[in-house]
């Protein structure tokens, strides 16, 4: 079973649909930080190499996103709903098909 901190990052990085988690980011363990050449933790969580699968089942209902700001703003104006805004890169190190 994954450790809770790793599960959080799986939720976060594995697709921003599964972005909500109850534990804050904690970063890699000290020995991993050492291996990387320093104790300084990078912001934003672990690299995809450290992650496994998304905890969400395929086909399951997730966050319903508007991919364009203007469409989302129009909908927020229509409904008076607050906005949950994210910006993500839909690639990692030049490899597509992953956030």
């Amino acid at each position, binding site marked *: 079973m994954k450790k809770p901190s790793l599960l959080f990052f799986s939720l976060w990085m594995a697709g921003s649909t599964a972005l909500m*988690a109850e534990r804050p980011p904690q970063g890699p363990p000290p020995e991993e930080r050492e291996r990387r050449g320093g104790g300084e933790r*990078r912001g934003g969580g672990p690299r995809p190499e450290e992650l496994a699968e998304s905890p969400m089942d395929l086909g399951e209902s997730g966050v319903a996103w508007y991919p364009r700001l203007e469409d989302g703003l129009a909908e927020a104006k229509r*409904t*008076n*709903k*607050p906005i*949950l805004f994210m910006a993500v890169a839909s690639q990692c190190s030049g490899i597509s098909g992953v956030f």
Partner: protein
Amino acid sequence: MIEATRQFVCIRIDSYESEEAQKIVRSYLNGRFENTAFCILSPDGKRRLTRSGRAPAHGLGRGDVARSLDKIAKKYRSESDTKNAGLPDFNSFRLALNVASAEERVLVLLAGGNEVVRKKLSEVAWSPNIIGRFEYDVESDPTTWTDALTKETGKTGILLVKADQFGQKGEVMAQLPLSASQQEIYTAMRQANANFAKTTEKKNYAQHMREGRRSGVTWKMPVEYGEDRDGDGKIDFRGGHGERPPRGRR
């Protein structure tokens, strides 16, 4: 958690899809630019209701995220009727296909059609059992997608697409005419979603990255990858080769 997000309009842009996207990110990150950003905004998009950061915990704090979202949403009397909600759409089919692959969802491509068809599809998109399970893209020019897809049976219609592993090609799972009824669209989408879930292997991210490197997969966005963590207006971290980003101000 997902239910909590239904009280919000959820907007997710790609950080590198345009210079405009970068300006948007900078405006919400106090001038910084980072490859991921998160914040909650007022309905007019002008006021930040939380701190901004790279992850929900940065903006919402270290407690129960769903509860934090509920607390924010309760301050607004909002319209919950999704009947007139707009259909989500990407700025390009190329990006739509890649995001569908990354998100591990079926992509619904509306090829051709008019506002009537768009509204018809939108009502299905926001209905229970469909909401949050698909990505959507609207294209009027078939040359934007015909080269990337196989098994299509015409250049107009509602196409249900399974993106490949790296989101650069796709296969049409089903194609409906623009005249299809809402019930027909709903049934086809439910079926496609079930088939997708049954026949698709969930991505393992570490394995995906290894296979991508081995296969020489490349992906270029309109804006080159980089971050400006100190917010001085200049990209100061381009990643790769073991580079470490400078720590920026929050």
